[in-house]
């Protein structure tokens, strides 16, 4: 059940109606049932996996609180992390490792492969669950007593399949001290849902057609213009797709009285790669920072240790997205860029001053991001090499983008700058009714005229 379908709209309306129609004490049960139903519509079999992981981490949390600090406590933590990573590893990485092992042994690459279907959203809910257990272990979070509360934290439908990755303390603060959303929050929630839908259906899906057309048969589209069209389209697709999803998730949560963290802050306006990662998939970046980079030592152990930690964090961040050499290279590429940037910048903070140097720096960052997206989007290493070859030495060919695509991209750029500098969207969401309504009307009209309506293009991050 994709967010951008009529089926989901009906589901959401029914859930909202029931939620506010039921007594407060029953609402979380409704949300839990609705979330499991939502997940079951994808594949009912994976509910068992979700329930198992939920049970393990719920029990681990309680257990951790009872066990005094020491080796036993650490053992409980390791048990929980091993269970999460074990499931994640099996479903997500088994075939990758088995294929490479077979190649290493000189056997056909499919010798040890299994027919594994990746459970939807497994990377998101395992990371969310692991962060809870680590927080309890660190004493930063009290163990949750009520299993329903914990189950809801793991499977809450707006963010179950593609985040944002919510921290336990934020979620339980909202759940345990639930307050009905204010009028401003409802307005903002509706605004974000419409904005997210517009980003997804009118922008992401239109660029998806170009990107999918190119990457579906890069050999059939020779030349640098085609390759640049394909990767430029993908860059816009993935941003609008994922940030659109996140906007809808945040908006829906707001309507239900929950507050999700922001996940994107106009990443293509970043003036450095460091800045980019502070703006892109923020909930994952901050998760990696808090649960991987800092525990590894962060920047406390000198330059070489910092570069190593950056590389390790980004390599694992790449692998989190998927089991392939491409994602590993993508992560490594980001790690190298971050290290180089740190080498050049030293300990000085990144500059985000809008001066004359900002546009060229932002353009350079965007171009570097584009190169990275080649590895992210290409089917395999062979195609990555092929696309990069076409981008940099492809010669003449046909542009796959129509002039209106550039118009759409230009509009997006203007709106992004408007939001970055003057908070246009924020202000419109809080503005008096006529302005608020005009903004909604403009987005809905954009949906009417640009949305891809008859081809359900899945959200990219649903595959992770």
């Amino acid at each position, binding site marked *: 059940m994709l967010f951008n379908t009529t089926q989901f709209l009906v589901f959401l309306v029914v859930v909202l109606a029931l939620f506010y129609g039921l007594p407060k004490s029953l609402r979380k049960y409704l949300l839990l049932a609705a979330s499991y139903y939502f997940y079951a519509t994808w594949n009912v079999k994976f509910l068992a996996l979700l329930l198992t992981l939920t049970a393990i981490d719920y029990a681990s949390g309680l257990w951790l609180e009872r066990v005094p600090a020491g080796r036993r406590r650490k053992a409980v933590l390791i048990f929980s992390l091993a269970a999460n990573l074990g499931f994640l590893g099996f479903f997500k990485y088994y075939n990758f490792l088995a294929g490479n092992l077979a190649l290493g042994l000189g056997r056909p690459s499919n010798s040890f492969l299994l027919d594994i279907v990746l459970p939807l959203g497994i990377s998101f809910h395992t990371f969310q669950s692991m962060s809870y257990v680590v927080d309890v272990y660190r004493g930063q979070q009290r163990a949750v007593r009520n299993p329903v509360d914990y189950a809801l934290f793991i499977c809450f439908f707006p963010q179950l399949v593609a985040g944002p990755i919510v921290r336990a303390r934020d979620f339980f603060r909202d759940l345990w001290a639930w307050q009905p959303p204010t009028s401003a929050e*409802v307005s903002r929630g509706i605004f974000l849902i419409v904005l997210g839908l517009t980003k997804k259906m009118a922008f992401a899906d239109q660029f998806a057609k170009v990107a999918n057309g190119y990457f579906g048969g890069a050999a059939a589209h020779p030349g640098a213009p085609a390759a640049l069209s394909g990767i430029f389209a993908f860059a816009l697709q993935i941003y609008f797709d994922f940030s659109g999803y996140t906007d809808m998730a945040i908006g829906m949560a707001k309507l239900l009285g929950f507050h999700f963290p922001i996940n994107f802050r106009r990443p293509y306006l970043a003036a450095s790669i460091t800045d980019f990662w502070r703006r892109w998939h923020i909930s994952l970046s901050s998760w990696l920072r808090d649960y991987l980079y800092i525990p590894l030592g962060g920047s406390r152990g000198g330059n070489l240790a910092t570069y190593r930690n950056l590389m390790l964090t980004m390599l694992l961040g790449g692998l989190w997205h998927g089991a392939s050499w491409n994602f590993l290279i993508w992560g490594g590429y980001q790690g190298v860029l971050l290290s180089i940037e740190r080498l050049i910048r030293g300990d000085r903070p990144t500059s985000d001053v809008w001066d004359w140097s900002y546009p060229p720096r932002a353009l350079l960052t965007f171009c570097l991001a584009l190169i990275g997206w080649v590895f992210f989007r290409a089917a395999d290493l062979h195609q990555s090499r092929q696309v990069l070859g076409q981008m940099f030495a492809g010669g003449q060919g046909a542009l796959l983008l129509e002039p209106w695509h550039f118009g759409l991209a230009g509009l997006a750029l203007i709106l992004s700058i408007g939001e970055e500098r003057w908070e246009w969207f924020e202000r419109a969401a809080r503005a*008096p009714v006529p302005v608020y*309504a005009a903004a*909604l009307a403009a987005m809905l009209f954009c949906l009417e005229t640009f949305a891809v309506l008859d081809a359900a293009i899945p959200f990219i991050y649903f595959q992770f």
Partner: protein
Amino acid sequence: MWLPCMQPRRGRALWGLVFGLAGLFSLDAAIFRSGLYTSILEPESSAGTFELILRRERNAQPWYGKNLVVTLGDSRFAYYPRVANEHTAETGLAFRQAGVAGTDARTWYYMLRDLDPTHDRYKAVVIGVDDYDDEDGAYDIGDDLATLHYVAGRLRWTDVAPFTLSFSDPAARFQALRGSLFKGTVFQRDLLAFLSHPQKRLANVEFVNGGYEEWTYGYHETTQNVVGLKIDWERFTAEFPPGNDQLRDEVARFILYRPYPQTGRRAAFRRKWFGQLLDYYSGSPTMVVFVRLPRGPQPRPENLVRKVTHTIRDFGARPGVVLANEHAFESLEHPELFRDGFHLNDEGCTRLSEMLAREISGLLK
């Protein structure tokens, strides 16, 4: 700080949503229902062709008096109004053509409604059909969404429910509802093409508007024919003139078929839409005339045609409705007068034009 922020009030979200939706409908109406966008549709698109023909015929109405006859049909109703009008002195009638290739009764209803809002601009409306009896074919014409793409520019708010409900398949109904409510969804591809090359489009529209009357009314069909086509209806095999692969494909797909199960859907569709069209002219001075068009270079034999109901014949009993002799144009059903399996060639069109003028004149006297 370009926007003043105010304290949120209760109901603000609801009012914002209501006014936001109102704004959406207003924008849709201002652009797609006002004639603004329909005047610059791509002339070769379904809706663009429909609008061009509608405009052309509206513009032509003042040139004629009370003797104007308009014909409606799909591409099979190909004739030359200029040839028919060479006989005006004899017939007393002037023929105009408002048919659109690929359309059906539902489309013709919306065409006539906007072409003749006063119900009296024509002496007669002549509708070309393939048969007076109803035979269900391979697909349900009632669920053909192509109609939406022809008439999108003509649908009014009051049409939303009846137009939507005229489709029976739920998916088609949903698309019809969406398209009739939000016309931007129907014109999306056209709009994107326009936004890509706006000046080129505007120049093309102006060019086509300027020459459309002359090109279409001065048009000559090809002289190509399908002599050599022989169909053995016993064995369901055919011989083709050499090198005509298109004909081979067409005959295999659309002509050499065994009768389909008769569901009555075609009859229901004809009853609804021709009925609505006849109701539109009920009590008006305009006559509605049905003619059976030449069916093909080698029509299906009677034993292969399933005739369960007879909608058009039944309509013949209504006042103001006339049925032309159904055998009137059978003499044209020969391979030398057809350019393919369905359409008349130049010679066929010329002959049909003359015969049509005389047939209609005889019926209206």
